[in-house]
């Protein structure tokens, strides 16, 4: 009877241990299914000026910065692009800046 009890306890802990391991693998699996931010592809909608947006803006930040924004008015987008130029030193000329604002209005503009 003692042997039996010992066996039971042994298998009990063995199973407990393996089941804990099982939970971890499940969590790891869940994480594996999620995209890692180091290898993400964010595709913004196509519209005129997308290439200029990409050439001028993506040096410092990814497209996710636009993707997460709600729709804004032209005035707000103009201010934002101006801020990038003036405060953060984005090296874009004024023609490109207008094209970028137009692109942002096309994909995230508030009419």
């Amino acid at each position, binding site marked *: 009877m003692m042997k039996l009890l010992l066996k039971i306890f042994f298998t009990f802990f063995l199973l407990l241990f393996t089941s804990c391991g099982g*939970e971890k693998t499940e969590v790891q699996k869940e994480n594996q299914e999620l995209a890692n931010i180091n290898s993400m592809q964010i595709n913004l909608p196509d519209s005129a000026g997308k290439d200029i947006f990409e050439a001028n803006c993506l040096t410092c930040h990814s497209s996710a910065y636009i993707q997460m924004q709600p729709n804004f008015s032209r005035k707000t987008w103009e201010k934002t692009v101006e801020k990038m130029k003036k*405060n953060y030193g984005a090296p874009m000329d004024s023609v490109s800046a207008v094209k970028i604002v137009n692109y942002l209005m096309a994909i995230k503009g508030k009419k």
Partner: protein
Amino acid sequence: MKGIIEKRKLLNRTRNKIRKIIFSLYLLTVKKINHLILSLVLLSCSSGETPDNEKSENKDTGKKQNLVTADGKGAMLFLTDRPPNLETPLRYFLYDYTPNSVFFVRWHLSELPKEILIDTFRLRINGNVKTELSLSLEDLKTKFTPYTVTALCCCAGNARSFCEPNVPGAQWKNGAMGNAKWTGVKLKDILEKAGLKSGSVCVSFNGMDSPPLSGTPDFVKSLDINHCNDGKVMIAYEMNGESLPMLNGYPLKLVVPGWYATYWVGMLNEIKVYTEPYKGFWMEKAYLIPKGKKDANENHDSLSKDMEPINKIGVRSLFVTPEPDSILKTGIDYEIQGIAFDGGDGIAKVEISMDGGKTWTVTKLDAEIGKYSWRRWRHKFTANAKGEYTFLVKATNVKGETQPAHHWNRSGYMRNEIESLTVKVQ
């Protein structure tokens, strides 16, 4: 002989029965324990819902909420990948201490070191000091008295996405904050070791993150000298008893209890003492709030002209469970639960309203964890009738400061509008 065989058979049968009973008991126990582990893993122990419900709910919301992962991090809400900005899912606020693996991530500049060689890492202290210092992590751990504080780290722009009208910026929900136990060295001890020269007025803090363009100002913050010497501001090498995750500022983070997270410079490697106020973009142009306006509230038709750097955390409370759009049942006792905090004066009361703010009922507060920690509040709720229920929650601190019915400013900083929660009872 026959009798003995019969007895043995009987004995064997009884043994088998006992074995079966023990085996089923043991299976049951394993199941129970597995269940317990599962519920712990899913953090559902205090939500009042069954773990299975929670699990399926999480799977659904996981897709809806746009969960991602990052090096050294668990599943978090995605804002941006480069520079990385990740938000803590609300359910983790059921814990008093936010787990490091899901603690919110916020960086301004995309040139972030991928790894830090700890043997060669040094924290430099220079400027208006008698002795310039160059401290290794080991120096900080062995040559100074360790200090631990529990403090809420709350992003200035937390909850920005709820601002009406919307404002540009990182579109955080409520998860750009976390409560942790920070261990490290008091800043005043380090400044004392370096020896402040006379005329010192402020100190700047720079981390190892840098801008990809030369025209972008490096992220540097500063604090007044008296604030630095108050014995509360510290440099943490541990959060919740472990090294900081890379994305939370490993190996060192400035901890400014009661102040917004913009001052909590991560990957801190340079401290500089000045004889005149520090003038830098991130102090003079960014992170500014309307000066002298309660809760930094302003009207979008007449923006304030006088601005000042953001500072102390404002009074705020929020709901943690049930989550928005939850479906509850009649006749069941639920616990509405949330957290409240301020800049370190202390939460005096948290009230809940079920009639749009006409009448308020005081909720039950958990014991205070620390002056700079958030504090949990709980309120029992049982619905007798089906329908939609809307709750409001409002905190008041010991100074009598409370939350506004409407809150807005151009940058979406310090949002502390009285929060509402709507649930359906079916």
